[in-house]
Every structure is written in C-alpha cells, then in structure tokens.
C-alpha cells in the first residue's frame, strides 16, 4: 500500500463498520481509508458494496463503527448536511420520474443540491449533459431513453455541483463499449480532483482507471491496494500448458490454443506466467470461499470439469 498516505489525506475513513439485515451481516467490521483518486470496490453479488456506498452517502445507518467523510461525522445532523453538500451519488437502482424531461430531472436534482439560482441551474444542467454526451437529449422524456442513456443521466446528476466526493454504484452497468471508454475519459477529466469511489463487476474498469482497489467478500474487506498489487496476489498461481490441467482451479483455452490455468500450486515443469488483475481477484474470492485449502480446491476443480 501507499505508505505515504497520511490520515489527513484520506477523504473517507471507516473503522469497525458493521451493518446487519436480520441474520445477514452485510458489512462485518470493515476498516478502510480512501484518498484522492479513484477507488474501485470489487466483490460478488451480495458482498456489501451497495450497503457500504449507501452508508458513505449518508442514507444508511451502520449498527456499529465510525465513518468520517472529510473529517465530518454523518451521525451528527449538521455535519451530515455538510457531507451531503460535497457529495455526488449514483445509487445502484436509480429510479426516475418518467414524465420528466432529461433537463427537467436534472433541474430537480440541482434544486435538491441547493442550487437555487435558476440561471446557475441551467448552466450546471448544460454542463453535466455535455459531460455525459446527452446534450442532444435535453428535451426528451426520460421514458423515451434507452437503458444506457438513463445510466448516463444517472451519472450526470451525480456530477451536478462539482462534488468533492463521488460515490458511483455500478456506473458502467449497461453502457456500450464506447460509452464505457467515454466514462473513463470523463472520470479522468473531472475538475477539482475529487475523491471517487465506484463499485463494479468489471475488473477491466478497475485495472484501467482505479488507483486503488478494495475487495469485499461477504461483508469483509479481503484486500486493499493497487490493481498491480491485486494482480500480484496471483503471482505464481497462473500457468500455461498445451492441455487441460486437473490440478487447476480454473482452466480456459486462450485464442492461441494454449490453456491458461489458475490454481493453488502449479505442477512442476509448467510455464508460470504473469497474473492479471482478474486472476488476482478470482483467486482471492475462491480462497475465501474455500478456506479448507486442498480439499476445497479439488472440489471446485472437479465441479469445473
């Protein structure tokens, strides 16, 4: 990890955070810090990403633990409002008032963000529409937008008012490949160097734009570090050969007809290669799923065959 990062630099700090829903521990003693730049949250369905982001967005309350955003405590009413003034939030399941026009919806959110002056609102709306490439759609009804356009509209509303902290829950879900690249460009060019936290299932996104990665598994933080460090966790666990390998946890045939394997220990004599971020993530999630080491591996290995 980046040893130079001092506590002062951390925009978001979380200590001992827990949140239960009945018997489900959505978050279990989560500990982390997030600084400037883009942090990617990785984790399978149900890992607790949305729960964590909603707590950071001050719309969900933890059962235990402390949260600090810009040194402010969301448990305090006045400080919570201060956090919200500096926040842009894209919920995972953002619904729209479907009768609204695109610009009308953004205008509404801009009022919620306390942009009272009508002209300034119009300027902000025009700015964020251009940022997500929807300027031609300003007058369209939301119900007439495609799913990907709605997703971009969701991103646009999060950008209103130039927030210092952007929390984006699966922002690239439903975007076509071009729009995914445009989204990366957009995040890289945001003015004011905001702190960005995004959750995603696309490890591509993480390796492409995130300076930090946090892997959540079943409510616990299992990894924090850079994407390169996540890839390194699988170093020595990826090898290639000409046939399928029964010892591998996962095997797949590449375009060059060689088999690529991910597993606990490569057999003697095979060619070990550099691991990717995906492989680091995959290995991590399987290790945690099957802590009983070899038996666990074999079982998964058999099922895969």
């Amino acid at each position, binding site marked *: 990890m980046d040893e130079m990062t001092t506590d002062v630099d951390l925009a978001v700090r979380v200590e001992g955070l827990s949140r239960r829903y009945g018997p489900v521990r959505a978050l279990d003693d989560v500990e982390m810090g997030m600084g400037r730049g883009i942090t990617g949250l990785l984790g399978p369905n149900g890992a607790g990403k949305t729960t964590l982001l909603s707590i950071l967005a*001050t719309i969900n*309350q933890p059962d235990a633990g402390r949260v600090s955003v810009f040194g402010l405590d969301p448990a305090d009413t006045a400080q919570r409002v201060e956090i919200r003034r500096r926040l842009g939030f894209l919920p995972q399941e*953002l619904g729209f*008032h479907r009768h*609204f026009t695109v610009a*009308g919806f953004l205008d*509404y959110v801009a*009022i*919620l963000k306390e942009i009272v002056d009508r002209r300034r609102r119009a300027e902000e709306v*025009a700015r964020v529409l251009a940022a997500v490439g929807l300027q031609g759609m300003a007058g369209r009804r939301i119900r007439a937008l495609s799913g990907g356009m709605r997703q971009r509209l969701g991103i646009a509303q999060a950008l209103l008012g130039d927030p210092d902290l952007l929390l984006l829950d699966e922002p690239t879900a439903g975007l076509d490949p071009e729009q995914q690249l445009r989204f990366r460009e957009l995040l890289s060019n945001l003015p004011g160097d905001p702190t960005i936290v995004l959750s995603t299932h696309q490890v591509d996104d993480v390796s492409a734009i995130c300076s930090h990665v946090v892997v959540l598994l079943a409510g616990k933080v299992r990894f924090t570090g850079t994407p390169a460090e996540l890839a390194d966790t699988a170093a020595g666990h990826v090898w290639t050969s000409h046939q399928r390998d029964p010892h591998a946890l996962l095997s797949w045939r590449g375009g060059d007809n060689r088999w690529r394997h991910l597993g606990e220990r490569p057999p003697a004599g095979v060619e070990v290669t550099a691991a990717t971020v995906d492989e680091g993530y995959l290995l991590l999630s399987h290790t945690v799923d099957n802590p009983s080491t070899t038996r666990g591996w074999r079982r998964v290995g058999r099922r895969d065959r």
Partner: protein
Amino acid sequence: MTTPFPDQVASADGPGGHLGGEVLAAYATNRLDEVAAWSVEAHVTTCSACRVALRAFVDRDRLARNRSVLLAAAAVGEPGPARRLLSRVGVPEHLLGLLAATPSLRRSWLLSVLGVLAVVAGESVLANHLWNRGSGSTWGVLVPFLLVGPLLVLGGVALAFLPLFDPSHQLAAAAPFPGVNLLLARAVSALLAALLPVAVAAFFVPGPGWLPAAMLLPCLAVWCVALAAVTVVGATAAAVVSAATWVLPVIVVAASHPALAVVRWHAQVAWAALAAAAAVVAFVRRDRFEMGWTR
C-alpha cells in the same frame, strides 16, 4: 414588485418589438440582472434578427456556451401559469421546481381525486332523491361523501410521503436540501390540491350550506395525524392509523346520531384539538422525517 415582466423589458427597448442595441450590449457584457438576461435569451431563441444583432456584441465561445445553457433551460420547460402565479405571490421559484416531482400534483392523481368525488357526490344526490321518495336511508346520502373526503387528502399525503412513489428518493435523501422541508412542501401541496375539490364537491352534495367549511378541519386533522403517525410508526401503519381516526368516528356517529354530527360544532372542537396535538407531535419529532438515517 419592482422586477418588470420579462417580455416587457425585451420589447420596450428596440423598434418593432426587437431588442435595442443598448440592451444587447449590456447583455453581452454581463451587465443585465438575471430577469433581464433571461428575457433577452428568451427573445433571442425565437428571433433570428436579434440573434444576428447580438453576435456583433458577444464572442463566439460565450454564445455557444450560452446556447447550450439556453437549450437546457428551454428543455427544463417554462413554468406553467399556476407556477408563475405562485411565484409572483412570493413562493420561491426553486420550491415550485421541487414540487414538479410531487406525485400528488400529477394530473393523473388530480383526475382520480375529481373522479372519486364526482362518483361520491353523484351517489349522494341520487340517494337523496330516492330517500325523499321514502325508499332510502341517511346512510346512503351523506356518509359516503363524509368518509371519502378526508381519505382523499390522506391519499395525497401518502403519495407525497411514500418512497414507493418517489422513484429517485435516494437522491432526495442524499441531497443537502432538508428532507423535512421537501416532505412538508409536498404534503402541504397535496393537502391543498385535495382540499379544494373536496370543498367544492361539498357544495353539490345534499347537505347544509355550511358543509364545505365544516369539512376543512377534519381534513386538516387527518392530515396532521398522518404526519405525526409517520414519525412514530412505519408509513403503512401510519396510513391505517390516520384513516381509522376518521373512518371510525364517522361510522360510530352515523350509527347513533345524524351522520352530520361528526362535523358539527362539538365535533369541530375535537377535530381542532386533534389537529393541534398531532401537529405538536409532528413538529417535536420532525427529525424522524429524514429517510434512511433514522430507522
């Protein structure tokens, strides 16, 4: 008010209703106040002659930027007559903007209010007609209308409150704009939007002339009870509780007294007391209105 109406500023200056050079120059150098600037922009979007004239004063970049702002502003939509009226009366413009997302101010909801009232009032009139000929009972004449009026108010509040009816409620919750103010603005507008048709319908049902006025306090009381209840129990339970505070007395009274006793003088005192008590509860517990944080 000192601010002149936009269109008048624009057309006052130039020949033939066009913008004068002075106004254009002032606009180009950002010397116009907001209202005047808007009026220039509103005119320029529709008038190519003035657009050309303006180009002499404004640099390209600024014009391009302004154009996208203009398009965005146009797409937000011009405020309708109701909104213009309210904003002239002094209601802040941005509050009215927020109400644009209030389900209980949507045409479909207002139409259903009117529809239900028309049916109930029609039923009362019809029942009264039959009863006069000796074949009906008081139950059919006023009780349905009495029951339905405040319940419609309640429905409007429920629409304004329940996250179910606000698909982007997570955005409202995570925004700095106080949740209490948003909900109150919605609830008040819902109250007014239902109260007016209820009072009008009361003129048509075969009750006494004071019935429209007598409906106001019970409606207000049910509304206050709903607000108070939602700070104590969940939204669904609050709806049931507040509906019951109206429905039960109506039925009990109608069973033993003339149905109208529930809105007569003594009852009015009770409704006023109830409204006041509920208002106090809602005020004291107002921080519970905030979604998400308080469970």
